[in-house]
């Protein structure tokens, strides 16, 4: 599975970078700092002599490596296809062949470490090719693992590990205060890698002693990982442990100021501490920046994820977070309004007001993607009607604020002995659906309107298709009931999502499938297979048609309802994807993971455009602000973090919940954030203030260093107890009434 996650895009990129530190270490000692901080592609000497056929040189290189591999394995057809897709000329691969040998030679001539460098290079080639192939052949997993682990094979004296580590520890403890916090970041990855190296080389007792001695020094937020680590004492165990494979395959990213880094480097070189230096070279990615070293609190705010912080480059890509222009449906709206106007003479005045606050129909948001960046489904008449309904409702919306808090209705699932695992409301709050651990999905109507099925085909033939109320006539009155049960899954249903038009329902389950249900016939329409492992979450795009799913296989998939195969696969997370959310403009997808990071993916090209680190536990809730600018995330540690998508920065931390936050939702105007948790409370936060404070604040966007003020208590507007019921879903109605849902289980 490790291979799967590195199959496309991001993973390959990481592998590629692997060539880089050794070259730096041995070749460019003088200016390694600068090189490290510069972009990976340009620093690779092998890439310099290549023809720039398309894309970045780095992509090119990867492609060529893949091509070479395919050719070696006589997969000529694949070679053809790949070449055609990538737009590479016929001779590109020959050039590559020459190029690779040339680079090997060059490396050899430059630094007399030719053997080592080419060995490294070959390792890269093998691993990336294995990665490319593994999705098709699981049996190929083994060599990959071996390759990854073989990085540990160099032998050092096991007894000296403790000496090395404590030597470094002593050094870091004695450096100036301003550097200490930064350099302390090295401890955890170093500790883990040294421990694993000991285990890999069968020094079991030394490994135990090492762990015993230094595990207590590590930051408390790594506790979970340390627990996993401590249970691992045998080389054999490493093979099957995905968490550790991830630790190997991905580099632990540290951000250190140049001064601190120089300090560390000098120390290690003086001491001839090669063991540690090797680890730093091989397994750590040190993102060096110029300027003030960061403080402890700054570091703590950003660290905690499985693989360290995000590289600054990772968050540099431009994100079009603005909202799409609303389609022009003013005319029918006016028609409708004229009727309503008889009662109330002001709707026309209200409309512009709504526009200004909703910012939806603005001319064109400069940050918005172009309207057709991704193809969106055409609006049907019924959609237009619904839009009109939405706008009318919006005019009656209550404006929330610090002194105007919403009313909260709690939907309790009673007698849910089978276990309620997921809940969703339709946007208009007319239906509620629950996913249950007994594999069922149940849909309730929360309005007096009962749920009806469409008549059978035979009966449908009998009705008059020309009549005005044909939509009414096709419904079978006999089937009217308050709730319907959908059977089909063979495992607990973990994720559930209504389509915006209320015609479909998606459910994702432990059985590895995502199912699409019709809410007209209450039958299953499609089972989307692809995950093969439990699918933890799924969500429809706000425009319908597309949906995203993510699960245990660490790959988020983008689907269209009419394709049985995914359109995009977003891989890069190092652990299960626990929750998935669409950006309001449908161009981006956010995924939260057990690796304690949040990634934002571009739907258009499948790239990862943002990596947010800072959570200290698996992320279980995500919510975009209605204006698309911000993201809120909640995790098992009970904290809610706020992110600025455009700048790729953490902008707030909301502390207060005592247990996992399972649900987050912004009010319709984005003024409030509601969070629901296992601790049986709903909390309301002042989102406006949280974001306003920051916008007035001078963004430290250039450095990427956030300095968060601890103002959770000021932002907390209210804590609301439920009746001993965990809150697993929240929803703001179109008029800003807050609906919460959960199952009461005595």
């Amino acid at each position, binding site marked *: 599975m490790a291979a799967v996650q590195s199959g496309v895009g991001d993973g390959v990129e990481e592998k590629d970078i692997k060539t880089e530190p050794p070259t730096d270490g041995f070749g460019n000692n003088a200016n390694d700092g600068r090189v490290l901080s510069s972009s990976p592609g340009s620093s690779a000497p092998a890439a310099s002599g290549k023809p720039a056929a398309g894309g970045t040189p780095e992509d090119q290189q990867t492609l060529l490596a893949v091509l070479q591999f395919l050719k070696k394995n006589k997969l000529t057809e694949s070679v053809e296809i790949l070449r055609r897709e990538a737009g590479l000329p016929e001779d590109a691969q020959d050039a590559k062949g020459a190029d690779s040998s040339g680079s090997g030679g060059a490396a050899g001539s430059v630094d007399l470490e030719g053997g080592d460098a080419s060995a490294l290079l070959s390792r890269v080639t093998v691993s990336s090719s294995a990665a490319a192939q593994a999705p098709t052949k699981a049996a190929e997993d083994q060599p990959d693992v071996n390759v990854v682990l073989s990085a540990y094979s160099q032998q050092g004296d096991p007894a000296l590990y403790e000496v090395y580590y404590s030597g470094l520890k002593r050094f870091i403890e004695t450096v100036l205060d301003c550097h200490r916090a930064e350099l302390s970041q090295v401890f955890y990855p170093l500790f883990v890698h040294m421990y694993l190296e000991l285990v890999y080389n069968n020094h079991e007792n030394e490994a*135990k*002693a090492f*762990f*015993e001695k230094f595990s207590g020094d590590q930051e408390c937020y790594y506790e979970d990982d340390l*627990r*996993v680590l401590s*249970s*691992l*004492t*045998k080389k*054999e*165990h490493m093979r099957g*442990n995905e968490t550790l494979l991830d630790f190997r395959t991905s580099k632990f990213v540290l951000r250190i100021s140049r001064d601190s880094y120089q300090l560390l480097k000098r120390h290690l070189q003086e001491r001839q501490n090669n063991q540690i230096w090797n680890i730093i070279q091989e397994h750590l990615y040190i993102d060096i920046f110029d300027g003030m070293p960061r403080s402890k609190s700054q570091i703590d705010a950003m660290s905690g994820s499985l693989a360290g912080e995000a590289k600054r480059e990772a968050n540099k890509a431009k994100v079009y977070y603005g909202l799409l222009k609303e389609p022009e449906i003013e005319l029918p709206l006016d028609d409708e309004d004229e009727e309503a106007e008889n009662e109330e003479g002001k709707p026309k005045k209200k409309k512009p007001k709504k526009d200004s606050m909703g910012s939806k129909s603005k001319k064109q948001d400069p940050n918005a993607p172009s309207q057709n960046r991704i193809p969106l489904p055409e609006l049907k008449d019924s959609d237009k009607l619904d839009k009109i309904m939405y706008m009318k409702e919006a005019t009656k919306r209550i404006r929330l604020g610090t002194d*105007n*808090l*919403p*009313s*909260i*209705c*709690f*939907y*309790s699932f*009673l*007698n849910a*002995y089978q*276990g*309620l*695992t997921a809940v969703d409301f339709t946007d208009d709050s007319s239906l509620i659906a629950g996913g*249950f651990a007994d594999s069922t999905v*149940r849909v*309730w109507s*929360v309005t007096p309107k009962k749920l009806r099925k469409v008549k059978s085909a035979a009966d449908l033939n009998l009705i008059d298709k020309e009549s005005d109320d044909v939509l009414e006539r096709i419904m079978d009155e006999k089937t009217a009931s308050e*709730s319907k049960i959908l059977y089909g899954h063979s495992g*607990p249903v*973990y994720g559930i999502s209504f389509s915006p038009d209320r015609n479909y329902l998606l459910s994702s389950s*432990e059985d590895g499938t995502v199912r699409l249900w019709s809410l007209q016939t209450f039958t299953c329409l499609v089972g989307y297979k692809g995950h093969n492992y*439990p699918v*933890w979450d799924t969500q429809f795009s706000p425009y319908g048609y597309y949906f995203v799913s993510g699960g*245990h296989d660490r790959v988020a998939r983008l689907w269209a309802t009419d394709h049985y195969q995914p359109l995009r696969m977003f891989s890069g997370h190092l652990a299960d994807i*626990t929750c998935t959310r669409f950006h309001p403009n449908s161009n981006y997808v956010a995924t939260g993971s*057990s690796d304690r990071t949040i990634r934002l993916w571009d739907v258009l090209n499948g790239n990862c455009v943002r990596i947010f680190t800072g959570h200290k536990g*698996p992320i279980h809730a995500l919510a975009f602000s209605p204006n698309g600018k911000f993201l809120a995330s909640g995790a*098992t540690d009970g904290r809610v973090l706020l992110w600025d998508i455009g700048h790729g920065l953490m902008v707030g931390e909301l502390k207060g919940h005592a247990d*996992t936050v399972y649900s987050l939702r912004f009010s319709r105007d984005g003024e409030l954030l509601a969070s629901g948790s*296992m601790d*049986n409370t709903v909390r*309301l936060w002042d989102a406006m203030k949280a974001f306003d404070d920051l916008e007035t604040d001078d963004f430290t966007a250039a450095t990427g260093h956030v300095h968060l003020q601890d103002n959770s208590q000021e932002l907390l*507007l*209210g804590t*609301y*107890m*439920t*009746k*001993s019921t*965990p809150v*697993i879903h929240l929803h703001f109605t179109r008029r800003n009434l807050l609906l*919460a*849902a959960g199952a*009461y289980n*005595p």
Partner: protein
Amino acid sequence: MADREERRFAEVSRDSVKLMAESAGVDLGDDVAALLAEDVCYRLREATQSSSQFMRHAKRRKLTVEDFNRALRWSNVEAICGYGAQDGLPFRSVKEGELFFVEDRDVNLVELALATNIPKGCAETMVRVNVSYLDGKGNLEPQGAVPTAVQSLSDDLLKYYQQITRAILGEDPHLMKVALLDLQSNSKIAALLPYFVYVISGVKSVSHDLEQLNRLLHMVKSLVQNPYLYLGSYVRSLVSSVMYCILEPLAASINPLNDHWTLRDYAALLLSHIFWTHGDLVSGLYHQILLSLQKVLSDPVRPLCSHYGAVVGLHALGWKAVERVLFPHLPAYWANLQAVLDDYSVSNAQVKADGHKVYGAILVAVERLLKMKALSLSQPAEGATNAQSGSVMGAMGYRVSSPGLSPPPEPLSEAALGIASHLQAGGAGCPWEEWTPVPLPAMYCELYSFFGDSLAVRFSTGPGFGSYPPCTPSQLSDTRKEPSGPASNPDTTRKMPQLTANLNISPRQDGSPRTDPPPPSLAATGSGRTLARSSSVQRSRSSSSRSGQRSTGLSRDVFPKARFTSPQTGLPAFSFLIGGRQMGRRCQGRRPFQTTFAPTPPFSTIPPRAYAHKLPVIGRVGKPVRRWTCSHYSLHLPL
């Protein structure tokens, strides 16, 4: 590291691995076992780790067996079966081997598969909405409150409920029977249980209507017997309703024509039945019942019918209950009862009749107490390993053979003992802990001093009686059978004439208006005088009045008969006699008597008959001697 790890994780030791291998028929070397153990530990931790993910996504805090099995399944390991039970699995240890294991009982799969008692009555999953907070204000519900209408009923169930209650409380007896039968066997009414329990708790409002009370009790019986119902904590509510019928001075009992006694008897049997079948659902139930019975018994303000209820309740709960509660209370209670029985005023007639009821109930209770106690004592002597368990087994046999409540719960008593001994340990009642059982001989002596020969149970007859107290178990086992055995027959047959004479008295005192009582005085006093001279004769005479009756039927029939006839007959005659004799030395007699009860050994040398003549003193303290004649005559008047 090693010990630290042990603290952190569940370890599977090398020995465990070897043991498991052995049980599978594989012989493992030490090093192999060690390696395996380590790997097993690691795999276990790994599975636990990934199972927690399933828990988190199910939005639970509790890791279930199901979660763990899912984790195993996804890592291509066979799932573990047999641990999915909702209730906790008891973890037992074997002392010798320092072995710990989960109790694993055999399950009869055929029975399970064919059983229809799959709980179906679960209320449907539903969504209910309530406005929790208006405009973010008003913490309407305190934390920890529970949503209302956690269970609500489907229409069908509601209809069923209405029909059933209507049928049971309605006029048509046939309909009632059908309804009760259905209630007893319907497997889908779990959701209705609270409602039925609520209906039953309505006993308090219909205490004037014996018929309704009876029907409600039948409803209790049906619910209790329904094998598909899990009564849970509703047992408490049911018990309190039944106790109400047993103990309360029901409005219906104001009219002497109402046979509330039968109702109380029935309720008592029902109580013991509930307790036997569902007593384990509520901890300390036995204690609570006993305490409330004791409270009633020791409350002199309560009417006699309440006391009667307490006595039959204790009786129904088993001889152990009688021993624990009734027996220690007897001396104190006796005084009150005697006062009632000795009051022959017209106004007291009704009360007196009630008193005789109580007397009879007590007599029956203590007789069985003696019998069962002797039985339990003799059991070890006969070679059984454990008297208690032996008797429990016997009791179970009885229980199975007794459908419903018809036979008196004699066998149940011992079963109750078994459970009682559990409850005593966990119970909160401190006074109970101090209680020490009175040895059988002493008990017998004491009871004999109250009832004299009214006691049907005897451990020794004839002149050898005086040497009874220090008797050995082997003797006991001999004497145990005596009451019904042929050995006693000559004795009883010999006394038959006197018995009839006594019986003549009984109907009148019983309160039944039709019989014309022959003057008892002559016969009674006459025989009494002779008895006064020879105490052994006296004893056998009056006791034979009871044993004689009893010999006409089985011991099981004793209760009803004794209640209506014998107790009153024996005692009045008896007391008259002694009273007449007694008066002169009353003051002497009373003191030693009162001190006698607790420490029996010093008195064990004195034959119990020595108390017999002092007995009436209790009831007659301070009363003039001529009183009895007056009251004797007065008896005629109301009847």
